[in-house]
C-alpha cells in the first residue's frame, strides 16, 4: 500500500468528508431498507433512528429488530448481536499506530465501522500525523450522519421511495465492493499478498453464497492469514 505522506489541498476534515463520499452509495440504500424493516417490525420512527444512532452496525441492527419482533429472549438477542460485531475487535488495534494520544479518539471509536476501518487503514498512513484526527472526524461523522439520515428516510417514507426508485436498492450499493477493491488492490504488489488477498476474498464469496454471511468476514480473513503464514514459512524454509 502506498505509505508516502501526502499533503492535503484543503482542511483535513474536508478531505475526510471527500474520501468518505463513496461510502454513501452503500450506506444510504441499506439504511433506508433498515428504517423500513424496523418500522414494519413494530418500532417507532424515533426508536428506529435511535437504534441506528447508538448501535450503528448494519448487520446486527437487522438481526436486533428481526429477533426482537419474533419474540426471542432479549438476553439471547444481546449476545447474538454482539457476536456479529465481535469482528470489530481487530480494527482499533490495527489503526492504533497511526493515532496519537489525543483523548478525542475515544468517542470517535464509535464510528469505527467496517467501511471506515477499511478507508482509514488505507488513508491514515498517507496523512501527516496532525491531520489524521481531522480527517477521521470528517469521514466518520459523514458516514454516521448518512446512516442516521438514511434510516430516518426509510422509516418515514421507505415504502414510497423503493416503489418510486426501485433501482436505488440495486445499483448504488455496488459503490461498496468498488470502494473495498480500490482500498485493497494496492496491497497486491507481490505474489504473497496477492494470493493472500485473493483467497480471503474468494473464501468470503463462497461463505456468503453458502448462507453464512455473518461469519464470512472473520472466517475468510483467517483463511487468508493462514495462507500467508503457510507461504511465508515455505519461502523461509526454501531460502535456508
Amino acid at each position: 500500500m502506498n505509505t508516502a505522506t501526502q499533503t492535503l489541498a484543503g482542511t483535513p476534515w474536508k478531505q475526510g468528508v471527500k474520501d468518505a463520499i463513496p461510502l454513501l452509495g452503500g450506506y444510504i440504500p441499506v439504511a433506508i431498507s433498515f428504517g423500513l424493516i424496523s418500522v414494519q417490525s413494530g418500532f417507532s420512527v424515533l426508536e428506529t433512528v435511535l437504534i441506528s444512532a447508538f448501535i450503528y452496525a448494519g448487520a446486527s441492527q437487522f438481526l436486533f429488530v428481526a429477533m426482537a419482533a419474533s419474540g426471542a429472549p432479549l438476553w439471547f438477542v444481546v449476545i447474538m448481536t454482539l457476536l456479529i460485531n465481535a469482528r470489530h475487535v481487530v480494527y482499533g488495534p490495527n489503526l492504533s499506530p497511526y493515532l496519537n494520544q489525543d483523548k478525542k479518539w475515544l468517542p470517535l471509536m464509535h464510528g469505527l465501522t467496517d467501511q471506515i476501518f477499511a478507508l482509514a487503514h488505507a488513508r491514515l498512513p498517507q496523512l501527516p500525523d496532525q491531520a489524521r484526527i481531522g480527517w477521521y472526524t470528517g469521514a466518520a461523522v459523514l458516514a454516521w450522519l448518512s446512516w442516521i439520515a438514511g434510516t430516518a428516510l426509510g422509516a418515514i417514507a421507505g415504502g414510497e421511495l423503493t416503489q418510486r426508485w426501485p433501482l436505488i436498492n440495486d445499483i448504488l450499493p455496488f459503490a461498496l465492493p468498488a470502494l473495498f477493491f480500490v482500498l485493497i488492490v494496492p496491497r497486491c504488489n507481490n505474489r504473497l499478498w496477492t494470493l493472500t488477498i485473493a483467497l480471503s476474498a474468494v473464501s468470503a464469496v463462497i461463505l456468503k453464497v453458502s448462507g453464512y454471511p455473518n461469519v464470512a468476514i472473520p472466517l475468510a480473513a483467517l483463511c487468508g492469514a493462514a495462507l500467508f503464514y503457510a507461504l511465508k514459512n515455505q519461502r523461509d524454509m526454501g531460502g535456508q
Partner: protein
Amino acid sequence: MEMSMWLALASIAIGTYLIRLLPYIWMKRSLAKRQTEDGVGSMPTWLTILGPTMIAAMFGTSLVPAHSGALSWLATGVGILVTYGVWTRTRSMGLPILFGVLAFGIVMLFFVF
C-alpha cells in the same frame, strides 16, 4: 418500546462501542509499553496481516449480488473490471468507484431489468 427492550438496546450499543474501543486502548498501551522497554513499538505480526485480510473479506462479501443470478454476476464482473481499469490510470479513489458503479448500473439496466 418497553423498558426491557430499551435495556437490550442500551446493552448492545454500549457493548458494540466497547468492542471497538477497548482493543484500541489495549494496543495503544501495549505499544507504549514496548516502546519504553526496548525503544521499538511495533504491532504483533498477526494483527498486521489480519487487517488487510479483513478488508479483502469485506470486499468478497460485498461482491455477492442481492439477487444472485448469472447476469447480476456479469454486471458485478464488469463493474469491478471497469473500477480496476480506471484505478490503473488514475490511482485515485473517487473516479474508479464512480465509473465502476456506472458500468454496473448500465449492465443491470440493459440486461437484468
